[in-house]
């Protein structure tokens, strides 16, 4: 069979799949938008950051009291606003702040007299995580305040130096990880739904009986699904680059790794569709597969920093290597113990294995239909 004929088969199958998808415009739109939803929702998580909103009741306006509040501001632990005792109490009871810190009336006088003084701290102890943040951050602010106000008394300080030339915000960092999850989700969804639809509508029989190369049919189906997955990917990248303002340092890496991720997960999607043969099962399986895999693959930072178990799980997840490669493409540094070459080899090998496995399963099950 000539190459030209095979290419025609590929084009015809891909075009038919795109047309079929567009006949269900609502699902086509939802399918393209679901990864964007992921991006927006997980960014909500990033926006919450680690800074606790607190009210400070200033019963003393002396210079040392002001300097203490400044130390709290500099501790990167609080979002501070001053309030009257009544307002602060109302806010903490309504759940809009996590703590009320009261600077007592004789704060300056007590410090000048080297007399011990306690700061009343009322904590909305919703859960241990937030409560412990406050329990750590208030003493930390006190020591930082002493180091600034009484440097001859508190001499031990932390002197920081950084590995990277500049800090990367949590939102720009997490947005890049979420792009990878979005690419995975878009590819899995399109691949699995397109394939399952062929079994539901019975068109798989026609394809199996057609006197054409089955490999060309498989490639055509992957390209058809890839069209919508790519539309979703482009939309995701546009959101990350334009409104969020994260520009890739290595655009070619984004292109190369992006195509590898789309190809690998499209193949996995086709595999899911071939195995379950029903869109009813393919859709939830695709969505549910992304969530745990994403969280276990180091989206917030190197997974091994979270402990031995998360680190070991991340090693066997292909998404770990995809996230590390994308972080390098956007930010220019490594975010996993392995280097970029290892990321590339693992991703390429994963793509080859999934495509081969899918071709094998599709060939056997498709023929048996």
């Amino acid at each position, binding site marked *: 069979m000539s190459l030209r004929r095979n290419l025609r088969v590929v084009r015809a199958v891909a075009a038919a799949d795109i047309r079929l998808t567009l006949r269900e415009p609502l699902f086509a739109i939802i399918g393209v938008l679901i990864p964007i939803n992921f991006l927006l929702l997980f960014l909500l*998580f990033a926006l*919450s950051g680690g800074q606790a909103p607190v009210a400070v009741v200033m019963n003393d306006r002396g210079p040392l009291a002001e300097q203490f509040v400044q130390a709290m501001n500099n*501790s990167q632990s609080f979002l501070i606003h001053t309030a009257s005792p009544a307002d602060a109490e109302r806010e903490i009871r309504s759940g809009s702040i*996590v703590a009320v810190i009261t600077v007592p009336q004789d704060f300056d006088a007590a410090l000048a007299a080297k007399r*011990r003084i306690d700061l009343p701290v009322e*904590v909305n102890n919703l859960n*241990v995580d937030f409560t412990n943040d406050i329990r750590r951050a208030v003493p930390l602010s006190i020591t930082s305040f002493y180091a600034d106000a009484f440097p001859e008394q508190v001499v*031990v300080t932390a002197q920081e130096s950084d590995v990277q030339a500049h800090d990367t915000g949590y939102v720009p960092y997490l947005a890049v990880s979420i792009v990878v999850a979005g690419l995975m989700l878009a590819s899995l969804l399109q691949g699995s739904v397109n394939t399952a639809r062929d079994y539901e509508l019975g068109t798989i029989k026609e394809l199996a009986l057609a006197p054409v190369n089955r490999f060309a049919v498989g490639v055509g189906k992957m390209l058809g699904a890839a069209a919508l997955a790519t539309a979703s990917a482009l939309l995701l990248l546009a959101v990350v680059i334009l409104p969020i303002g994260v520009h890739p340092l290595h655009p070619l890496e984004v292109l190369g790794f992006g195509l590898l991720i789309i190809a690998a997960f499209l193949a996995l999607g086709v595999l899911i569709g071939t195995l379950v043969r029903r869109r009813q099962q393919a859709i939830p399986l695709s969505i549910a597969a992304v*969530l745990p895999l994403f969280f*276990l693959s180091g989206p917030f930072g190197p997974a091994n920093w979270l402990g031995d178990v998360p680190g070991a799980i991340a090693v066997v997840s292909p998404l770990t290597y995809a996230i590390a490669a994308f972080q390098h493409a956007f930010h220019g540094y490594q975010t996993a113990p392995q280097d970029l070459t290892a990321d590339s080899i693992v991703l390429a090998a994963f793509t080859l294995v999934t495509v081969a496995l899918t071709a094998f399963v599709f060939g056997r099950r498709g023929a048996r239909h």
Partner: protein
Amino acid sequence: MGSLRPVLAIAAKDILTWVRTPSAIAVSLLPPIAFLLIIFVAAGAVGRNPVALVVQDSGPQAQRLVSILEDSDAFRVQRATPEEATHLLDTLQVAGIITIPASFDDNYRMHRPDPVSVRINNLNLDFTNDLRRSVPAAITGFYADQPDTPVMVGVAESDLRPHDVDLAQFELVPILVLLLTLMGIVNGGLAAAREFEDLTIKALLLAPIGRGTLITGKILACWVTTMLVAGVVLAVSFVSGILRPAGWYWLPALAVIGLIALAAAGLGTALGGALRRFSAVSGAGINVAIYLFFLSGGISVAAFLPEWIQTIAHFTPTFYGVDALEAAIFYQSTDNLGRDVAVLVLTAAGGLILGIVSLRRRLNAF
């Protein structure tokens, strides 16, 4: 009484169909299970960064600081030589290097500036700020332990609630609400969409029953399946001691669960009537439920979010459901209970009206 039997028959049919459709069960259960897994993995690891500790002074003060750093719940400390520490940092085995210099004790004794150097792999602000806070926090502990501490300011803590709640336990309530909304919206939607997609709606419309009976049966089936699954989750949580409302607080907890399930069943039926396609309903339903989950404080607390998101969250009914369940289960409190229940009653009524109107219009047009 005459219309009760057909309502129950339609409800029983839908419940049986749900039990026999693994994909419908998967749509409802997989996302909450995924979030549950994530919360348990994340809760065990939050906030403890691996660091290499280089100790160049064997004096008593240096050793005391080492002991505080090693006992701190902010770090996982690995002792290393300077060369080893650099290698660990370069290969991302650790997030930072803390070096206690050879002159530490001398400087401390002489009241000279005595810096502890911290080299941080500042690849994102989340980890970086953790380290920026944790080392000064260890220094705070160092001074607090000194008999002649110069720090004269202490903390007198008082807590708003009777006891602290573990993070993983705390996150279970939003996940329970996610389960309820997913079960209601997706299953209610699928039960309605399935009738249109498989054309069984024709048989139902030809049956000698009113349309109201048909709609009531479908919403009832969805509510019952949601409550059954919630019942299993609550029973398992109660036996394991994870979620255990005390005394009469079971009542508001169950009422809130019932109201959320009812609102979600109504919304799901509305969605199914409007979209009439299984794939569209499951895609849209999962999205809606996950949005509601995040906006009700799913993996954060609303107070930590920017103000504009907090404003949106206050218009999200599940926000009040989570608040009421947390108050009943964890804090044995009736604060805001009236407000929360009122919002949920209104939402349930709105959901039911939407479901009835949407399905009735679609049936009339069929």
